């Protein structure tokens, strides 16, 4: 220890007072601690360590800002004290600022190298930040200081393992096991460690050792997880090419859980077959195996379902017939979802259609005069119709699907599945209002069904009915929450956040849309933060095996569809705000609210204010003992409409907070890379932009949106006042030339693209966008181009049509209405292209009520009271 610097030294009285402060902090006597600290500070107002302790205590008591101020002051006054840095680190860690916290901890360790608490916290921070090199060092130090603590050994092994050094990890475990004495029987923690050891041996391909370790410890009952033993054993035996014994093990696993596909895969690969890639040579063998399992295990679905994957020709026809008919007879609602994956094979699709169609014919032919309990139950016919409706909608024959559903509904109008699927078909054909209504009709049949309720909420959001969606969602949220939406956000409802954001965006309320997308971003931040506790917990409780699976999962958690969609949408909004900042004013929320909505909003705000007051009262009542902890409490929502998000001065940076984490995940999603391009090119990060386009090109070289971006990039780069400096400039132009030959003019390139894709509506739209981008074309020509989308052989979907309408609006085309009307004609079943007055009444009708349900009764003459 270096000598105590004079500034820190306190006379003996104050010195013992300081020890008291530390003690009082440890025992959470915050008020007393504060008093004692003040006693010291009266005489030594510049004493850094005391200032920091006082700041820490104040933070715990809820006086965060004041506390932080003192801590910072304390650090400045005594830069060589480990205490001040430790305190600073604790506060930063509480704010989830892990990078900065680790820096403070590193400083603290400079002045006190062997402080166990600081070392342990530093290890957790290093794991959270994935600084595995440093982690190994820290864990080494901890083990050296406390070799008798079991978790320190495991900690070091895990650190090596995370750092990619399984061999060292294995050595650590070997040492560790030598130090153990008197392990009690059936010890779960020891069992976990041994399984981990086996896993490490497997990883470094010492299969013999792994097997003998597994067998010895399974026999002595030191490993107690029977399923894990069996799975491990089967896997290792297969790797050892001990085929017979391995087959036996896989078979035992299948007997135990006949619906686990992994076991079948293991069994097959042990026999030299790839279950998911059966060739003509292996076909007979594979079918035989599955047929044997089907006979052995009459109740298992997996072998039957797997056989459908592999079977061909008549063999398939026979199997699918009994599979489908038995499913329909049992009334399995998910039957279609189960088998639709087979539709990628055209033959199988046709076979399924003909099997079910002939079944329907058989059932719908006039029934025998006196049906008895022996004849086919009517529900079989019902489920047949339901299956067929799903089939036809899946292959794009939505009108046929709807008419089948009508037949089914007149047969049995009380099955919610029929309404739900009707809603889905209407959604697919571009009628969100009819869809919301059909879903609502399903909900009215069974109000306690939470699934139906949530679906209705979602469909209402799809129809732009935000308030009405909250009405139904509110039926299942906490009654004392400020609003259903607030409770759903609190519960991290990803479905609500995504759909509500998209709803606001469609309604033109960009501020609230952004607010919800940031809410979703926060959910994923929280999931990442939640890992932190496990870096300590899992070692303490020896739950190492799941922990090691959790770490790579957390690394990729943002590849979740919901996050990806939110990131794309939010960045698109920010890009449009960057391109046209006046959008922020246009989309101010107040304009969009009707009288009722305003009233509802006021009510919600009042309720929220009331809640805050109550909470404050509650807090006041508890102040005596309350420890607020180091994490900042829930923040006051001072931007309920997201207005300040709209006015952000750095929209592109905001967009990048969404996209940045995705850039390194190597996602196979074209839209992600397009979004990354759109933001990067505007940030003038040209290399990043061109790399994004390279990704798109490798995924989908003819993508219409890629076409637009290629022209955009060339156009942007050539209109720069001067080319980017070395080395960026040359690399950029070389990469760009590879994507888009510099010899052709952009105009020619565009018309060539159009000629190559004459039947793709999206491609025509893309070339119109390029015309607009290049700026030389008169407006009429752009209009004429998009109208060629209505040529008879051109195909496009409802979504593309909607995009075109919005595009025409944005360039103030005079033919928006004409396009809308033409699209309305083209998409017969859709309502999304109706005029705004029609849509207003459709929105009104999208809510089903009890009275509506009885409108059908209106012509009934007799009323019984």
């Amino acid at each position, binding site marked *: 220890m270096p000598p105590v610097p004079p500034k820190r030294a306190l006379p003996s009285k104050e010195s013992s007072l300081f020890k008291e402060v530390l003690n009082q902090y440890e025992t959470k006597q915050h008020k007393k601690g504060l008093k004692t600290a003040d006693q010291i500070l009266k005489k030594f107002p510049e004493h850094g360590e005391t200032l920091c302790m006082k700041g820490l205590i104040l933070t715990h008591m809820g006086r965060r800002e004041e506390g932080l101020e003192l801590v910072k002051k304390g650090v400045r006054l005594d830069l060589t004290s480990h205490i001040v840095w430790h305190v600073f680190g604790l506060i930063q860690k509480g704010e989830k600022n892990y990078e900065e916290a680790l820096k403070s901890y590193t400083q603290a360790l400079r002045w006190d190298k062997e402080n166990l608490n600081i070392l342990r916290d530093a290890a957790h921070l290093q794991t959270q930040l994935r600084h595995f090199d440093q982690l190994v060092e820290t864990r080494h130090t901890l083990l050296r200081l406390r070799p008798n603590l079991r978790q320190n050994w495991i900690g070091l092994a895990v650190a090596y393992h995370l750092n990619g050094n399984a061999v060292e990890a294995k050595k650590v475990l070997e040492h560790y096991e030598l130090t153990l004495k008197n392990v009690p029987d059936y010890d779960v923690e020891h069992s976990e460690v041994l399984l981990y050891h086996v896993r490490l041996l497997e990883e470094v391909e010492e299969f013999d050792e792994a097997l003998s370790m597994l067998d010895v410890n399974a026999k002595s009952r030191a490993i107690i997880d029977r399923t894990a033993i069996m799975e491990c054993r089967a896997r290792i035996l297969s790797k050892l090419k001990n085929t017979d014994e391995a087959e036996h093990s896989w078979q035992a696993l299948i007997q135990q859980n006949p619906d686990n596909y992994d076991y079948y895969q293991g069994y097959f690969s042990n026999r030299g077959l790839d279950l998911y890639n059966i060739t003509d040579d292996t076909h007979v063998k594979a079918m035989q195996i599955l047929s044997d399992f089907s006979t052995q295990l009459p109740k298992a679905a997996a072998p039957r379902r797997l056989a459908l994957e592999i079977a061909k020709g008549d063999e398939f026809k026979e199997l699918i017939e009994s599979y489908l008919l038995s499913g329909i007879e049992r009334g399995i609602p998910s039957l279609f979802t189960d088998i639709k994956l087979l539709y990628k094979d055209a033959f199988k699709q046709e076979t399924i259609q003909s099997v079910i169609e002939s079944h329907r014919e058989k059932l719908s032919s006039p029934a025998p005069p*006196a049906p008895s309990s022996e004849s086919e139950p009517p529900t079989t016919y019902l489920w047949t119709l339901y299956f067929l409706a799903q089939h036809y909608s899946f292959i794009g024959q939505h009108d046929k699907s709807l008419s089948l559903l009508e037949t089914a509904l007149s047969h*049995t109008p009380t099955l919610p599945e029929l309404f739900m699927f009707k809603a889905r078909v209407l959604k697919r054909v571009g009628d969100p209002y009819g869809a919301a209504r059909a879903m609502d009709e399903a909900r*009215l049949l069974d109000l306690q069904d939470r699934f139906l309720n949530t679906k209705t909420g979602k469909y209402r959001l799809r129809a732009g009915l935000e308030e009405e969606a909250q009405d139904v969602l509110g039926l299942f949220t906490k009654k004392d929450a400020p609003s259903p939406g607030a409770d759903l956000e609190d519960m991290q409802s990803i479905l609500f956040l995504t759909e509500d954001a998209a709803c606001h965006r469609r309604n033109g309320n960009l501020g609230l849309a952004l607010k919800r997308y940031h809410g979703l971003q926060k959910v994923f931040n929280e999931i990442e933060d939640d890992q932190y506790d496990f870096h300590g917990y899992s070692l303490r409780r020896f739950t190492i095996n799941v922990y090691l699976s959790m770490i790579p999962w957390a690394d990729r958690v943002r590849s979740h569809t919901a996050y990806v969609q939110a990131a794309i949408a939010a960045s698109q909004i920010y890009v449009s705000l960057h391109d046209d900042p006046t959008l922020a004013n246009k989309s101010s929320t107040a304009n969009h609210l009707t009288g009722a909505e305003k009233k509802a909003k006021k009510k919600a705000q009042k309720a929220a204010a009331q809640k805050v007051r109550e909470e404050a009262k509650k807090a006041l009542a508890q102040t005596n003992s309350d420890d607020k902890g180091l994490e900042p409490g829930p923040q006051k929502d001072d931007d309920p409409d997201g207005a300040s998000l709209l006015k952000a001065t750095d929209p592109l940076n905001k967009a990048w907070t969404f996209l940045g984490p995705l850039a390194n995940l190597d996602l196979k999603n074209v839209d992600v890379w397009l979004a990354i391009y759109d933001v990067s090119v505007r940030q003038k990060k040209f290399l990043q932009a061109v790399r994004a386009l390279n990704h798109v090109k490798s995924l989908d070289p003819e993508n219409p949106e890629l076409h637009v971006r290629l022209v955009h990039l060339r156009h942007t780069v050539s209109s720069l006042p001067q080319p980017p400096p070395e080395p960026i400039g040359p690399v950029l132009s070389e990469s760009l030339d590879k994507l888009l030959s510099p010899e052709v003019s952009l105009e020619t390139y565009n018309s060539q693209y159009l000629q190559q894709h004459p039947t793709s509506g999206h491609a025509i739209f893309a070339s119109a966008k390029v015309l607009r981008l290049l700026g030389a074309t008169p407006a009429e020509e752009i209009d004429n181009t998009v109208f060629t989308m209505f040529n008879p052989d051109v195909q496009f979907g409802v979504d593309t049509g909607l995009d075109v309408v919005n595009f025409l609006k944005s360039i103030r085309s005079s033919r928006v209405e004409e396009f809308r009307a033409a699209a309305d004609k083209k998409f017969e079943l859709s309502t999304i292209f109706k005029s705004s007055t029609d849509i207003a009444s459709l929105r009104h009708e999208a809510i089903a009520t009890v009275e509506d349900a009885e409108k059908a009764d209106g012509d009934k003459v*007799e009323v019984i009271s």
Partner: protein
Amino acid sequence: MSTTSRSQPRVSFASLTPNNLGTVRKLNSVLFPIKYSEKFYQDVLLPQAEDFCKLVYFNDVPVGTICCRLETVDNKTRLYLMTMGVLAPYRSRGLGSKSLEHVIAAAANNPKLKIESMYLHVQVSNASAKSFYERHGFKEVAVQQDYYKKLIPHDAWILERSLTDQQADK
């Protein structure tokens, strides 16, 4: 599971709640030529009516209802069958009989209320309904004239069955 050795269809009953009332409304709207008032829907939810108001399920799909109300006059309690119906495709499978027997059994075995009898109205044109109830021990006790104000014919039979006399069951 093969198609020849079919398992028996499942028939079950569920009590009415505010949550499944939508299903009852839907069934009433397709089953009967009559519109029922809000009072009807309030009455079927009364706690004392629980045993006598049911949804009928066939293979877990709601396909019918049976709704009665209790009437007490001069200390005598009778059960009045307001509605009973099964969706057309599910008829002739004994669902109506099972529902009626279910309610009759519940009424006869009710320890608290002494329910003396059960009665109902049948339009005089509906002979098959009449014979159905007669098979279940009901007897014509009167004809009520002009019971239906707007349906033709206007008259209705009143059918009644004793619930105290155990012999009547057999």
